């Protein structure tokens, strides 16, 4: 991986994520017959939030302030491990997929802890929901990874999603389809999208992720939004690379293909959100267990 690619990787990680939100919102607006917010609205929001001051409740401690920052840093760090398209990852070593998964767990732990730190009933409720659902999302992610580990014999994301992916699709396409579907579910849950959560709702009682950050304001809230956008981007990159295992060998084409894949994914998320209602909260665990089972079947298919 060239130094240019590493620089690009870091740059894309820092700059591109909010654009995905813009594409999703534009897609949703198109379905609703509206013009919708500008494509770059998420950037404007971040710029506005980072200029603002913060308000802190007297009941909160340093945990409350650490929450958004840890979540942001964890997501950005995880982004370094994930290969963007065929151009590889900025950072890779044996077993980095474990670090990848637990970086998100770390961020989540601090977000939940920050929510509990406020002592608000709402935020406690949101924290409980987030913890419950992530317990089920984590195995789905790991089982999906195990399919790749078994296929490639490597436990580093850069190799697992490396050049040989095209050949793997030819040999064990069925398993990979299941992994893609399962990871897509994980992506929607982790990034609090419909049908699991509604990022635009104002109804505290139905929120999962949003309710945990109700008390954050100003730059810290900006960090929350930014971190969430990076998380969406990173998990999206994982799914896109899996679903588009094409290596052109030319850097420009590879980057172009990756960008097209990400935009396509954002449009797909937007379409899903437009044609579906949210699930009843009680049914979310069933769907997550379903995602785990999908990944598990992927492994079973390989074991024959």
């Amino acid at each position, binding site marked *: 991986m060239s130094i240019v690619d590493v620089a690009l990787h870091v740059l894309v990680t820092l700059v591109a994520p909010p654009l995905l939100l813009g594409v999703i919102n534009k897609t949703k607006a198109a379905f609703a017959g509206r013009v919708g917010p500008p494509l770059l609205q998420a950037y404007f929001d971040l710029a506005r939030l980072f200029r603002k001051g913060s308000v802190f409740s007297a009941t909160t401690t340093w945990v409350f302030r650490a929450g958004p920052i840890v979540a942001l840093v964890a997501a950005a760090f995880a982004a370094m491990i994930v290969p963007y398209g065929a151009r590889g990852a900025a950072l890779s070593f044996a077993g980095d997929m474990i670090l990848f998964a637990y970086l998100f767990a770390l961020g989540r732990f601090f977000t939940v802890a920050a929510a509990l730190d406020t002592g608000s009933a709402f935020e406690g409720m949101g924290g409980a929901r987030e913890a419950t659902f992530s317990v089920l999302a984590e195995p789905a992610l790991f089982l999906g990874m195990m399919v790749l580990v078994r296929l490639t014999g490597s436990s580093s994301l850069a190799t697992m999603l490396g050049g040989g992916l095209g050949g793997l699709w030819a040999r064990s396409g069925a398993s990979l389809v299941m992994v893609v579907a399962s990871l897509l579910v994980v992506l929607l849950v982790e990034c609090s999208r419909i049908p699991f959560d509604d990022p635009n709702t104002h*109804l505290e009682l139905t929120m999962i992720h949003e309710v945990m950050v109700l008390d954050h304001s100003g730059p810290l809230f900006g960090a929350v939004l930014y971190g969430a956008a990076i998380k969406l981007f990173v998990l999206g990159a994982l799914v896109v690379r899996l679903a588009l295992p094409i290596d052109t060998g030319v850097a420009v084409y590879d980057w172009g293909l990756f960008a097209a894949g990400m935009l396509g994914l954002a449009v797909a998320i937007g379409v899903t959100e437009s044609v579906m*209602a949210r*699930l009843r909260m009680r049914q979310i665990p069933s769907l997550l267990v379903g995602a785990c089972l999908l990944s598990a079947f992927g492994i079973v298919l390989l074991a024959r």
Partner: protein
Amino acid sequence: MSVVREGRPRFAQTRAGRVVARAAVPLLSLEELRAGVLDRVAAGARLVALFGARDARDAPCAAVELWAVLADDHEGTLELATAPVARGGSFAALTPDCPQAHLFEREIAEQWQITPIGHPWLKPVRFPRASASERESASASASATPSAPVVGVMDYYRVEGEEVHEVAVGPVHAGVIEPGHFRFQCHGEEVFHLEISLGYQHRGVERALLGGPDKRTIHYMETLAGDTSVGHASAYCHLLEALAGARVPGRALSLRAVALELERLANHTGDLGALANDVGYLPTASYCGRLRGDFLNLTATICGNRFGRGLVRPGGVGFDVEPERAADMVRRLDAAVADVESAADLMWSSASVLSRFENAGRVAEEAAFELGLVGFAARASGLYRDVRHDHPWGIYRFTKVPVSTMHSGDVFARAYLRWLEIRRSARFVREQLGALPRGGTRAANESLATLAKQSVCVSLIEGWRGEIAHVAVTDERGRFAAYKVVDPSFHNWAGLALALRDQQISDFPICNKSFDLSYCGHDL
């Protein structure tokens, strides 16, 4: 049902919109009133209103008259009776035997310091501040003035135990909605009990109406509940016209009904969109948001105000509709209804939406009956209750709107019923605009000048939420000695609290929206 049983306390028989002389209303003892109400409710009657009023025969105002208004929906009749009770006195509460009286009795206790003995949950309703004159007399008589009650500050029903927790929502909400406080007793995600505490919007409208009618009265009526301007204004005007004995031209009655049904169309459509929004189903949410505006604009086409203010006036309506405008309105109505149809069909054919609506917030028919629910909330639980059918007024005496009912009593039933009513209201409006009666739009002004003295009149209107009841008692000069407003929300808030039992707390927003009750209509 109208058979008078042996020993049954006698009530005055009347109908909605008829004037009864006060002398004809039997003055019962408190025991007789209680027995009479319970007897009739057991026979299927409904408590329309139960309220206290100053006893006009008693100069120092130490005595209060309790008024009970019952409706027999099958016969289309009303029954009235009063009983005197001393201020600061007490009576045996009806609530244990007649749950629909619960909020009325709390209101009486709050307004007149009369204790309903045996009331299971006696708490303030609206936390009214004492009037200036009352404050003065209190400070003159006692050195320590009792501090004014603070809205929402009181004990709430609590469930205790391992893992039981309490969630408090409001009165300041995340959306732009009215203030109300909701206390949930939860076990994990499951709601054991919901207590709703209102009163934040109390403006003292009923007190301001005493001594009326005057020039301000109609404006109070139009702002009792902003989304029911036409409904409350119509209820008031029908009451006033009955008391004055005025004859209102058919054309005016027809236009009032058109405005009332447009109000229903706008609110039902808006709520279908809001329900879709609350489950994150965007297409229907966005389209219905716009279509609600289309119906509001139709109302504005008649009178220049989207909520119909200035349209319904004592003696008739403030604006006429010429044939070209009527034809244009029908055209626009058809276009809007066709759009609502496609937006609603999208929703009804979406499995993910139906799975959210079905079996959520169920109110059983029996519970709806006992709580005395009204309007579409009652009809969704299988009760056949519609003032347009049971106690027809105005143009509804000649043109019938079929009553729609559902049986499951869940969010889906309340949502789908809106859709059924949208279609039927649209047909009604089309019919009325196509054949408006000829003639003027206002009764002669002098015919409204004097109201029947020492009389009482009850006016019932099926607003879009349900039954709007206005009761007026006039004094010896023909002024309002008492004016009672019962918004449908007053009956139905308890239905929402009940609907949440054993539900997921995350389903509260759709349950709430499926009822879509008024805060200011309740708080007055």
